[in-house]
């Protein structure tokens, strides 16, 4: 290669390098705009928090309700009521009623303080059909639209069992689809 051809080649090579830097700068601009301008709203944290509080505080939720005064005692769970799985699930789906529920599902477990199922009680489900699907998808860790977010919340509660109040933990697992 003669000297002139070498100079032309290096000039051309440098031009491509400049072009590459230019594209990098332009791409950074677009990336910054996308990074700072939010067009999507993710309310899954607030939604799961309100859902858990609704389950605990609702007069027809999971907390003990005095049959005479109809007063609700949020934070006190009645063992007899909780052990009636079918009845409590129907009650819960009615208390947090959604005709076509495609936004939220949950599982509620009553645990002892050492995190074992209280008297081997099985979980209570809200919107069970979707819960099974979303929970499975959420556990894959996939972040796309078909997947779901899983939130776990633990609340210390008192378990009303045979006239006594025992310490326990209420574990609420919430599944919210990404779409």
């Amino acid at each position, binding site marked *: 290669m003669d000297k002139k051809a070498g100079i032309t080649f290096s000039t051309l090579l440098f031009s491509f390098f400049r072009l590459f830097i230019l*594209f990098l*700068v*332009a791409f950074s601009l*677009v990336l910054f705009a996308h990074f700072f301008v939010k067009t999507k709203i993710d309310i899954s944290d607030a939604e799961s928090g309100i859902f858990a509080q609704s389950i605990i505080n609702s007069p027809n939720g999971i907390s003990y309700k005095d049959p005479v005064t109809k007063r609700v005692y949020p934070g006190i769970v009645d063992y007899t009521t909780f052990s009636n799985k079918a009845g409590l699930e129907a009650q819960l789906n009615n*208390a947090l*009623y959604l005709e076509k529920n495609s936004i939220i599902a949950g599982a509620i477990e009553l645990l002892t303080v050492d995190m074992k199922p209280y008297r081997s009680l099985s979980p209570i489900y809200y919107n069970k059909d979707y819960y099974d699907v979303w929970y499975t998808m959420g556990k894959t860790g996939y972040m796309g639209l078909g997947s779901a977010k899983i939130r776990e919340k633990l609340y210390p509660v008192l378990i009303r069992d045979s006239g006594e109040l025992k310490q326990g933990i209420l574990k609420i697992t919430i599944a919210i689809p990404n779409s």
Partner: protein
Amino acid sequence: MHNKKRNRKGFFISYWVLIEGLLISIAIVATFQYINGVKNDTLFEQKYFARDLALMADTVSTVPGDVTYTYSDSKADLSAYEYHFTKNLVEIKESGKDLSVTYPFYYDNSLSPNFQSILKPDQIVFSKKGASLDISKTSGKKPAAELCPAIDTKGTLNIISVDSSDGAWDMADRLYKRFLAMPNAGFQLSLTRQQDPTALEDRLDKISGTTDAVVSFDVSDQDVIHVYASKNSFQDSDKLACLIINNLKDEFQSVPAYRLESEEKIINKHGVGVKVVVKNDKAPDRVTAAVLDALREYNG
């Protein structure tokens, strides 16, 4: 020969600089276009309200005991949209547009829901009392309606002229457009002026002997509503002023409203005449809707 080669090299370099400049300009313009598009897009705001209101409905419906919560927002303009609460769904859209944003909410099915469609509100009231769940524009504590003269005015207004000051022209124009969109108003309506300033005498000449009533608009800096009634045909004018003020009180509940006798020429020269004065940033659509409703009520 040597100079020619140098020129060619110079052309080559400036050619690249031009391409680079063009590419940078495209990138900058595209980015600003995108940001501007996002800024002007109301869809984000509608999505925000849909979610916020749905969460509010979730919360209020599951509270143990009774609660009333008045929802308003200082960050976004709540009064820019229409809100339709149906079973399990909050739907938000801009007036006159088909596109809507929805978001579901849950509520206790043992409650009896009373959900309303709410148009351009300043606030939305969520209330749970006993077994009733209400979502409405007001808390039910409406300001007391004024007692209107008990006179028969049915069908008396056939031709109505709408006048305005320079600052209130937009309101007169909106009223006229709203009137044109009404299928059976029961009266004719015309404007005394277009957007350009016109002398009062010219406006008076224009409507002389051709109108049954004059409705005039003006704006002020104070957040007070004044509705003036013409001294001529005072009882008739006072009835129209009374109907207007009651509708405006419903629309702007926290704003003090007064009805007074007017000395002004434009509304005194003809039969029935009223002048509506509101603060210059009051939602003109809501003011004009209140006035048009009053005109229809007046005519029976």
